C-alpha cells in the first residue's frame, strides 16, 4: 500500500520540501506570535478598529 502510494510521487522531494517549509514556517510563526512581551503591542493593535469613524 505504502509502496504503491509512493510510486505515484514522481517528484517526492518537492512535496517533502513543501512540508518542511510549512512546518518550519508555522513553528517559527507560533514562537514569534506567542512571545509574552508582545501582549501590550497586540492590545494596542486590537483597538485600531474601535477608533472614531
Amino acid at each position, binding site marked *: 500500500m505504502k509502496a504503491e502510494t509512493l510510486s505515484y510521487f514522481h517528484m517526492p522531494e518537492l512535496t517533502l520540501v513543501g512540508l518542511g517549509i510549512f512546518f518550519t514556517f508555522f513553528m517559527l510563526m507560533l514562537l514569534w506570535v506567542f512571545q509574552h512581551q508582545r501582549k501590550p503591542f497586540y492590545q494596542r*493593535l486590537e483597538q*485600531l*478598529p*474601535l477608533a472614531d469613524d
Partner: protein
Amino acid sequence: MIAEHNVTHAGSDPGELEEFTYDDQIVRYFAYATIGWGLIAFLVGLLIALQLGLWQLNFGLPWLTFGRLRPLHTNAAIFAFAGNAIFMGVYHSSQRLLKTRMFSDVLSRMHFWGWQLIIVSAAIMLPLGITQSKEYAELEWPIDIAITVVWVIFAVNFFGTIWKRRERHIYVAIWFYIATIVTVAVLHIVNSIELPYSFLRSYPVYAGVQDGLVQWWYGHNAVAFFLTTPFLGLMYYYIPKAANRPVYSYRLSIVHFWALIFIYIWAGPHHLLNTAMPEWAQTLGMIFSLMLWAPSWGGMINGLLTLRGAWQRLRTEPIIKFLVGAVTFYGMSTFEGPLLSIKAVNSLSHYTDWTIGHVHGGTLGWNGLLTFGILYYLVPKLWNTELYSKKLANVHFWLGITGTGVYMISLWVAGITQGLMWRGLTAEGKLMYPDFMETVTRIIPLYWVRALGGTMFIIGFCIMVYNLYKTMQSGRISEPQKHKARRLVSVTTLNASELGSKHRLLEGLPMVFTVLSVIAILVGSVIEIIPALVVQEFVPNDKKIKPYTALELAGRDIYVREGCYTCHSQQIRPMVSETLRYGKPSTIAESQYDRPFQWGSKRTGPDLARVGGKYPDMWHYRHMINPREIVPQSIMPNYPWLATANTDLDVISRKLQVMQTLGVPYSNDEVKQAKADALRQAEKIAAGLRAEGGVNDAELEQRELVALIAYLQRLGKNGGVE
C-alpha cells in the same frame, strides 16, 4: 467637528499633526453597485434554477440557455456582487485603519468604473457564448487584460494608501486585503495565459490535465482569495466595530492568517479527485483540504467569540445577527468543504448537486449575510441617519437564513440521492438505475424546493433594498468630517527602541510583509503545478492519439460556446458503476489536445467522454434540435439554431495554426487545407443525415450542428485509436 487619532502618541511617532478627510463617496458608489449587481446575480440564479425544473424557461433562445446563463450567474455573484462588496468594505475600512484618505481619488474612480465596465462586458459576452469555459475564468482575452489593468490600478491605489498612512502598525484586516490583492493577481495572470486566434477568441496554453490542474488551482483559490480572505478581513474590522469590542484574540488572528493563506493554496486538486489526474496530486489536495479545518475554524471561533459578553445584542441588533449568521455559515461551509475533499466522500458527492448546495452555503450564507450586515452598518453612517426599520432588517435576516437553509438542504438531499442512484448495483453486479434520466426525474421536485429557498433569499434582499432606500432618503450626505492624526516619521529615522522592538519594525513594513505573503502562496503553487508543466514523463504524450480534425475542432468550439460543460462531464472515474455506465476510465492522454479541458464539474446530464459512436449521427441531429423527441423526460434545452446557423470555417486555418504553435502536431498542409478538409468531412456526415433521416437542407454541410456531431462522434475514439 474634527476627530483626532494617535494625537497623544507623541514619543513613538513624533510627526506633525495633520488634518484630512476620508473619501466616502467611493464607498457609496461601491455600495450602489453591490446592491444593483446583487439583484441581477440572484435573479439570473433563480432563472437557471427554474430552468432545471421547467426546461421551457430556456425560451428556445441561444442567449437564455442554461449553458450560457450559468457562467453569467457565477460571474455576477462572485465578481459583481461579492467583488463590489469587497471594494466597498476595503475602501471604507482601510482609510480608517490607516488613518488617511485613499492614495488617489482618480485611481479610486478608475477602479470603480473600470470594474463596472468589465462586468457589463461579461454580461454581454457570456450570453453571446463568448467564453473560455474555464469556471469563474470564462471571460475572453481582451477582458482578461482589462481585469489585469483594473486590478493593478486597485493595487497601486491600495499600496499607495498604505505608503501614506498615519498609523504605523498594520491591523490584521489589512493583511488579509494585501494577501487578496497579490494572490488574485498571480492566479488571474497564470490561469489566463492564452493565445488569441481572433478578436474575441483564444485557446489556453495549457492542455488536458495541465489545464485542469491550473484551472482548479485558480478556481479553488478564487474561492479562497476572493470569497474568503477579503471577507475575513472585513469580518475582523466590522464585527469589532458593530459589537464595539476588540477581536477575541489578536494572536489567533495572526495564526489564522498565516496558516490559512499557506494551506489554502494547496487544496485546488480536490476539485479533480478520482479523475485521471495523478494520484499524488489528488492525495496532496485532499490532505491540505483536511488541514484547512484548523485555520478556518480558528477564524470562525475568533469572529464569534469577539461577541463574548455582548451576546444579548444578538437579540436586538440586526447587524450583529447578520454578522454572526455569516460567520456561522462560514464555519459550516469550511467544515463541509474538507469533508467533501475526502476521496471516498467525493466519489459520492462529485458531479452532484451536493457541491452546488455547499458553494451556496458559502456564497449566500457567508458572503451574502456578511455583505448585508456591512450594508446595514454602512448606509446609515454614510448617509448620517438611523436605519429606516430594524423590523424589516429582522424580516430580511430570517428570510435570508431560512432561504439559504432550504436551498442547502434540498440540494444535499438531491445530491446524495442522485449519487447513490448512480452507483447503485444489483446483486448480479449490474446498474440498478441504468437509465440516467431516472436519476434526474427523481430529484426534480428538489429543484423546486431549491428555487423556493432562492426565492425567499431574493425577497429578503428586496426588503433590504427598500429599507436601505428609505434610509438613504431620510438621511443626507454631509460635508466630509475632518480628522486629525500625526504624520508618520520614516522608520529609517527611528531607532528600534522608539518602535518598541525589531518585530514591530517588521510589522510596520508592509513591503516585507507582502513579499512574505507571496512566498507563502507561491510555495504551494510551485510545488503543485511545476511537476505537471515541466516533467514530460508526468504527462505521457500518446503519439497514437490523433489531434482533432478541422471540423471536430470547429464542433468542439461550438460545444464550448454553448456551455455544454455546465451539465456534462467528460471524465469517467475509475469506479465500477462509472465503467458499467460509461465505459473504461478516462486517461490523461485522451485529453492531451483539449484546449480548454472539458472534464466538467457537474452532471445534470450524463458523462460524454465516450459518447462517440454510441448513437448514430441522426440521433444527435434530432436530439440537439429537440431532446424530448428522443428522451421524453429530458430537461435539456432545445438547440434549433445549430441546424440553421453556419459554422465559421473562414477562421479554421488560423485555429489550427494557433494549435500548431501550442504544440499540437498538425502538419503545415493540414493547417493550409483546414477549410477544405472540414468541408469534406461535413459533406460525408451531411450525406449520411440526408440518406438516413431525410434531412432536407441544401446547405446541411455548412451547419453548426454537423460540426458538433463530428466532435461528439469523436469523443472517446481518439481519432481512430481506441
